[in-house]
């Protein structure tokens, strides 16, 4: 067995999330690969929550939280009821026999591992919530991790709280670890490399920070709040976080901060992004760099706030009235959350336009073991910044130029004063709207200025080698075509399909606007393609159709709010082949 799936299930307030995080960290520090995902609701206490931790051999990156459950930690009766249908054959169930009835579980099919979790927790620490830690102790024994790794992680996590807290955690976990009937049954191969554990929101925030983002303004909204929490926690590290009264204020503040010359970002989910829409075009019009993160959840309206979907692609690509240059990019995995954030700020500065990073709940909130990021290769390009103009001349902030990009100056610089106008304006920023629109000279200015702005799209297509999909297994007979976070599951599906002798590859999109029509067309042309995405209307397929005329008729679409997995895609792809 190269990986196993551990699911901790209970109610909100049971500490499901903290125990899941702890297990992730312990396994990642032991040189194993981890992939974590949680199911939760929008309530603070009660409900049914679960945290799945897939642990795998150190040598191979995991691409999903896996199919089914191999080890269930049942923290309440609901956990048995709700999770039993997900149990894989032979699964182990850790439960507290003083609290939970397992009569309905067939002991011949599953391995029952009763541990008096609560009694041990209370006896050892006096704190009933520590029963999770007893269970985690048992789990790490099942997967063969040494107690010393656990101790190291606990020291890092709770060291600041003092020795007593560390000791208490370790002694409680040891009781589970050495409990009667608990032995190592899953042997996973460590590669000896301790890794970081983080979710997509964190990787994206760190990428923004690495790119010298100094301002983040946002209003809380799941599942984008992780980015907000990260910036709030690091407000003393040379970055200003501002929680605003609404998302309209959030984006306009970021625009104001960017106008002043700092790299600025805002973020939300689809609902909050909807409120930002007018200001997106404003940033485009005044050519002020801006990075906006849109972390999708299941919609429309309030939708399913704690579930995932990819149904906002066409919306973000077309949001705001009129035409203006913009870039839309969807990171495909956690590593790309970092690199895309770095690229986004450089692109925003170079082309003085909004860059929208479109993520989703699954990408944003799932955890992975991460080797680290290539911070040495981070380069900061602020684009055409000027500090002065020749004496006696007036600064043309919106000067017509071959590449569409005009020189940019920031307040405080002497001689380059200008007014940025949300109205249509001339090269100086003076209005052509209220008093002059329709007069011949100004009609001409409108056309020239619009051409100048829009030209940036052609120039970036020519200059940046980003706006094409990538292809994996290029000689395959057929391809799964996908975008954003679904790429991970598609890659896993390809492995499964290939292992069955079905020759598949993946074509995946991160940058979606602009798109190099010719190269995209060449890549897709003549291939057998299956479109895979998490929405109803096959939005990527529509984008492909729009850009290349290629109509991908075979589609695997999912919109139940759950993250798509490789097994699911592989099974559906097989069905499509049989048809």
């Amino acid at each position, binding site marked *: 067995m190269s990986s196993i799936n551990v699911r901790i299930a209970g109610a909100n307030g049971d500490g499901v999330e903290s125990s899941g995080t702890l297990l992730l960290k312990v396994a990642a520090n032991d040189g194993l690969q981890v992939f974590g995902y949680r199911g939760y609701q929008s309530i603070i206490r009660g409900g049914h929550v679960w945290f799945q931790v897939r642990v795998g051999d150190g040598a191979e990156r995991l691409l999903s939280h896996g199919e089914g459950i191999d080890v269930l930690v049942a923290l309440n009766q609901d956990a048995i009821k709700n999770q039993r249908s997900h149990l894989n054959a032979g699964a182990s169930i850790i439960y507290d026999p003083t609290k939970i009835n397992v009569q309905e579980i067939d002991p011949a099919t599953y391995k029952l591992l009763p541990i008096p979790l609560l009694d041990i927790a209370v006896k050892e620490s006096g704190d009933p919530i520590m029963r999770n830690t007893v269970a985690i102790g048992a789990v790490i024994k099942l997967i063969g991790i040494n107690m010393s790794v656990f101790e190291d992680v606990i020291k890092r996590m709770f060291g600041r709280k003092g020795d007593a807290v560390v000791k208490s955690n370790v002694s409680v976990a040891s009781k589970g670890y050495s409990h009667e009937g608990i032995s190592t049954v899953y042997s996973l191969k460590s590669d000896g490399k301790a890794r970081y554990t983080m979710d997509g929101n964190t990787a994206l925030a760190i990428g923004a920070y690495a790119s010298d983002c100094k301002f983040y303004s946002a209003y809380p909204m799941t599942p984008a709040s992780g980015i907000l929490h990260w910036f709030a926690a690091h407000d003393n590290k040379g970055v200003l976080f501002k929680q605003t009264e*609404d998302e309209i204020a959030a984006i306009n503040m970021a625009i104001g901060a960017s106008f002043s010359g700092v790299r600025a970002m805002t973020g939300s989910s689809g609902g909050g992004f909807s409120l930002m829409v007018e200001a997106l075009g404003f940033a485009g019009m005044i050519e002020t760099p801006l990075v906006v993160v849109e972390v999708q959840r299941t919609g429309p309206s309030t939708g399913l706030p704690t579930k995932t979907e990819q149904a906002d692609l066409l919306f973000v690509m077309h949001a705001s009235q009129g035409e203006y240059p913009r870039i839309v990019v969807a990171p495909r995995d956690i590593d790309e959350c970092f690199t895309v954030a770095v690229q986004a700020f450089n692109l925003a500065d170079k082309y003085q336009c909004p860059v929208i990073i479109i993520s989703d709940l699954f990408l944003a909130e799932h955890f992975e073991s991460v080797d680290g990021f290539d911070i040495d290769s981070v380069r900061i390009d602020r684009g055409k910044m000027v500090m002065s103009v020749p004496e006696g001349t007036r600064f043309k902030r919106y000067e017509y130029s071959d590449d569409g990009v005009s020189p940019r100056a920031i307040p405080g610089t002497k001689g380059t004063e200008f007014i940025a106008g949300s109205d249509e304006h001339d090269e100086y920023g003076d209005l052509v709207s209220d008093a002059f629109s329709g007069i011949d000279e100004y009609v001409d200015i409108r056309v020239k200025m619009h051409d100048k702005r829009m030209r940036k799209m052609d120039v970036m297509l020519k200059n940046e080698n980003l706006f094409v999909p990538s292809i994996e297994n290029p000689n395959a007979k057929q391809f799964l075509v996908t975008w954003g976070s679904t790429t991970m599951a598609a890659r896993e599906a390809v492995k499964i399909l290939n292992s069955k002798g079905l020759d598949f590859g993946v074509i995946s999109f991160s940058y979606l606007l602009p798109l190099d029509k010719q190269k995209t067309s060449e890549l897709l042309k003549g291939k057998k393609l299956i479109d895979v995405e998490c929405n109803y209307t096959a939005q990527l397929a529509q984008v492909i159709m729009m850009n290349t005329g290629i109509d991908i008729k075979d589609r695997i679409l999912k919109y139940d709010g759950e993250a798509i997995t490789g097994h699911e895609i592989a099974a559906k792809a097989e069905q499509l082949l049989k048809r």
Partner: protein
Amino acid sequence: MGETIPQTNAAAPKAKQVYTSKNKPIWCPGCGDFGVFASINKAMQELGIEKQNVAIVSGIGCSSAMPHTFSTYGVHSLHGRLLPVATGLKLANHGLTVIGTGGDGDGYGIGGGHLVHSARRNIDITYIIMDNETYGLTTGQTSPTALMGHKTKSTPFGVIEMPINPIALAISAGATYVARGFSGDPVQLAQLIKGGIEHRGFALIDVFSPCVTFNKDNTFEWFRQRVYKLESQGHDPSNLDMAMQRAFEDVKTQYEKIPVGLFYKVERPTYGDLEISLKDGPLVKQAAHTKEQVQSLIEENR
């Protein structure tokens, strides 16, 4: 537009500066906003601020064309959004003098939410609202400060909502400098604006700036007959209770007596004073994040 500006302030920063631009204001002849323009200019002259350190931010509306009449930095932003834009601008570079200029529809209507929050966070911005009790640029609809019964294109049978009380609203929301001026008295107005700029914190200056085209009720003459100066009545702007009483005087007198001047002023730390990330100076001047800093943030995820 398109002309080369004369060299005015190249040499000595303390020399008299030209803050105005050559753009012609879009306002109707006789518009109250001309007086506000003159007063802002006078206030800046008296303060001698270097114009590269001034940012004038507006929303949308007749009065929001204000930044274009100046040769400082500025943003003519979206309708109702001048405060968040100005706030971001100020937070990123608190060395700048940030002045907001907009109308009553922009500030009390569509942007009303931002006003309350900007006031309570005491962001160091001077916000001048040119209040003409009407929507001029959209050709005369009712506004949040229109008086009950006032007839407009959108209220042909008369306004049936209470007007906003900007002074009481700003004071109760936490603004630390709250004043009202009248475009017909640019001398007093310039002093109020100057005081607002000098004040550290959120300054709201509501200015009666009559619309000569669409508001035939609240004219220059109408205001002239009703306004009186607070200082002439021995008003103490440090007294919160007294300020609130004066704030409702217009309502209580059926708008027969309308006080103008400085209602309320209090010293309170600004948002910037308390914001931890600004303790090392203006954000825009802070050093770029280092590789070591980035690595230490990655390490947190060990």
